[in-house]
């Protein structure tokens, strides 16, 4: 192996690592705020990527009717909950969020798409279609179980993953798709060429980290999310609406998922079930971070990306086996350093 291959592998590993970092961060975020171990995170990646690929060829993606359907489902769940307490403004809010918002997105897409917009506008449209799904999925699947155990929430999460993956197949078919890059060409760093698309990925990852930092440190909603993460009941007692913080965490997760999808769609072929594996690699990083530390998760994600890049060079058949086996030493280490009496 010469230095060119080494440099290439490092560049490749850091690029995938940056994506895993984005996913790992949103997994930690969702777990901290809602205690949901969000297995379907990867589905948002596949949805985002495939949506962009379909928009590229000027067609309406199947995720758009899916968004409307999810909104209607969330509205129905809201209606059912109004049996307990009804206030007219709640009905109006619910209709706006669950019915009008998807309708606006739909209108926007069918209006803008025939004008043959540029790649960045298409990417924004794809993100816009996927981002609200987080809210509806939280409303339909997880909010009714807000007080259930982590285990029940995890099983729910796997159920949502199954459903979303099947719906992905329904919306996009079994064929793999690839999107056009946001920007063509490449830059060179010394002897190493770096594709422009990778720069977008690094930029987005750094922007997401800075954005999350500012959100948590400087905004009242961010602080409410942190409060919910520390103590759900305590947060409610001081007036934090935990349904709102839960919904926010899920929207952040779906947005970050969609952004990741849009970013990788041009560099790899995505199938309806590819997202799951990508999401799980984010998980490996999040677990290394103990499902609690953002910085450790980010660093671990880069590590996962590098291991994967080198594994695919030296033992490509065993790539997935090696990446997922990374968890074993991590779990051993956590097991030896955790006091079993802490967690009940």
């Amino acid at each position: 192996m010469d230095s060119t291959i080494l440099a290439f592998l490092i560049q490749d590993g850091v690029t995938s690592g940056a994506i895993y970092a984005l996913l790992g961060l949103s997994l930690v975020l969702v777990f901290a705020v809602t205690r949901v171990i969000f297995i379907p995170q990867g589905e948002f990646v596949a949805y985002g990527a495939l949506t962009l690929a379909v928009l590229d060829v000027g067609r309406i993606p199947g995720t758009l009717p899916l968004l409307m359907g999810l909104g209607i489902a969330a509205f129905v769940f809201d209606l059912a909950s109004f049996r307990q307490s009804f206030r007219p403004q709640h009905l109006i809010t619910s209709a706006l969020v669950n019915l009008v918002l998807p309708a606006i997105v739909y209108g926007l897409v069918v209006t803008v798409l025939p004008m043959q917009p540029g790649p960045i506008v298409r990417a924004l449209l794809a993100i816009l279609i996927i981002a609200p799904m987080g809210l509806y999925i939280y409303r339909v699947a997880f909010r009714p179980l807000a007080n259930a155990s982590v285990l029940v929430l995890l099983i729910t999460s796997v159920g949502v993953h199954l459903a979303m993956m099947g719906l992905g197949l329904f919306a996009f078919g079994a064929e793999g798709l690839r999107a056009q890059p946001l920007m063509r060409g490449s830059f060179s760093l010394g002897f190493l060429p770096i594709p422009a698309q990778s720069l977008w990925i690094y930029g987005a990852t750094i922007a997401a980290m800075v954005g999350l930092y500012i959100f948590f440190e400087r905004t009242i909603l961010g602080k409410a999310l942190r409060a919910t993460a520390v103590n759900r009941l305590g947060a409610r007692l001081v007036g934090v609406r935990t349904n709102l913080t839960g919904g926010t965490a899920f929207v952040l997760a779906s947005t970050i998922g969609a952004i990741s999808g849009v970013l990788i769609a041009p560099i790899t072929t995505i199938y309806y079930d590819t997202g799951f594996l990508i999401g799980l690699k984010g998980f490996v990083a999040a677990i290394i971070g103990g499902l609690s530390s953002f910085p450790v998760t980010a660093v671990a994600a880069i590590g996962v990306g590098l291991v994967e890049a080198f594994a695919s060079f030296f033992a490509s058949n065993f790539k997935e086996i090696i990446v997922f086996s990374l968890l074993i030493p991590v779990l051993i280490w956590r097991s030896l350093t955790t006091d079993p009496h802490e967690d009940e």
Partner: protein
Amino acid sequence: MKGLNITLPGLVAIVLLAVIPLLPVPPFIITLMDNVGLASLVAIGLVLLTGVGGLTSFGQAAFCGFGAYTTALLTTSYGLSPWLTLPVSLAVGALIALPLGLITMRLSGHYLPLGTIAWGIAIYYLFGQLDFLGRYDGITGIPPLQIAGYRFLDTTSMYYVIWAFVLIFAFGARNLLDSRVGRGIRALRGGSAAAEAFGVNTARAKLTVFIFAAIAASLSGWLYAHLQRTVNPTPFGLNMGIEYLLMAVLGGAGHIWGAIFGAGIVLALKELLQRYLPWLVGHSGNFEAVFFGILLVMMLQFARDGLWSFVLRLLPASAPKPKAQPGTESLPKRDMPAPGTPLVTLEKARKQFGGLVAVNDVSFEIGAGEIIGLIGPNGAGKSTTFDLITGVTSLSTGQIRISGRPAGVHRPGDVARQGIARTFQHAKIFPDMTALENAALGAHLRGSAGVLRSFLHLERGEEAKLLAEADRQLERVGLSEVRDRPAGDLPLGQLRILEIARALALDPNLVLLDEPAAGLRHGEKQQLAELLRKLRSEGVAILLVEHDMSFVMELVDRLVVLDFGTVIARGDPHQVRNDPAVIAAYLGGVA
């Protein structure tokens, strides 16, 4: 086989199972039933793991794979008889489960399922990459099962083999749950503190169910290999693992028969959906996943106990456990130490949490046959002292001697073995178990039956003694009337009394009671005081933390008063009542 204890509906179901292949049913029904049987084995393991033990695995399909590949390899490449590979297959499953279990069992609940997702994927790829396992093509030409020259070649003959194993496993699993080991497993869901306090090794109980579930899955895989006579990685991937969990949740995590029920429903639905969905949707694909995913979420939202609990309402209630035969031997009793012998001695015991000294060089002694009250205002360090004695938290400095020997770093189970039983400030009773079973958990250390004897119900003699002891203690505290009720139905006052019965079932020489009178009515307090006096007269020492002063004062021999972690007074009730420091601590001193 004794202890099978089959009800009428159960008998009908078994007869029905036996005659189905003789009826004129289409062959695909028999194939479906074979698959239901195979899945049931896995689901039974998951019911024990998830519904009873409070753990989950998405990776059970991987264990099926180990069972299937083990026999496939040994029978084709080495020509071993399938019956010889059966124990090997099961052992491979257990041996793979052991390290995985050891790694994750000490971690909080969600690391095991996450680990199982990762290994479910990794092992699927591994099966597909290894040359000696035939890569993605798998292994073909596996010989059929054979008994005395008869070859189990078709689906109907395998039907009987599969369902015979399912029934053996289902009855065994039921036996296991209804045993000493089983109570330890069922206690896992209620938090480990109470079970540990009576000597249940919760880490080991978790490992036991995990390995049990792995063996069940390996057995399913072994049968699968000899039914299909070919194996490849596809049925051992993560998706099947998730489907098995769906079966357990749908049937009713917690019910053995629910596992079979759930497996039947899921596979029948899958058959229907795969037949009609593509026709509805217009093109083919794995669309039943959408349906199953939504079904799983709906079950958890609306019927978390599963569908079997609805079936159970239609069936006659199972008979309560029979009372002990008059001739039942009682368990051997501990030799009570002579009155006054020091049982527990605290020597400058100190516990610091960061800068806070919760217990500040506290020294006192508990002698056999005396009642000592440990009192003090809120936050005085009473509960921490309790935790120090019972080994829940460790000392910062100082020493605790139990029966004269330094306790060192002791665990709650060690304390229980020394004859020290406790109750909890917030009653920690297992709501799904009956009052009798809760009390019997207290006698856990007085039995010794292990998993295999329990599975086969060969420990009925010992079990009868344990239950007789539990009955005796319930009667002693006046709870005989509610013995067969789930403890979750009992009011708080009775739960506290039940905790005392559980403590007494340990045959203790010292009982630590944490606010036993809280929530009791006046009459109940009188009865409790009466019981405690009687225990003292039998030589049992009692350490009592209690806020009801009149209850404490008329009962105890000596008092130790704590304030801010420090002993501020000690002596008989009369002395303490007139101690100026105590009055100041309780009523506020002169500034």
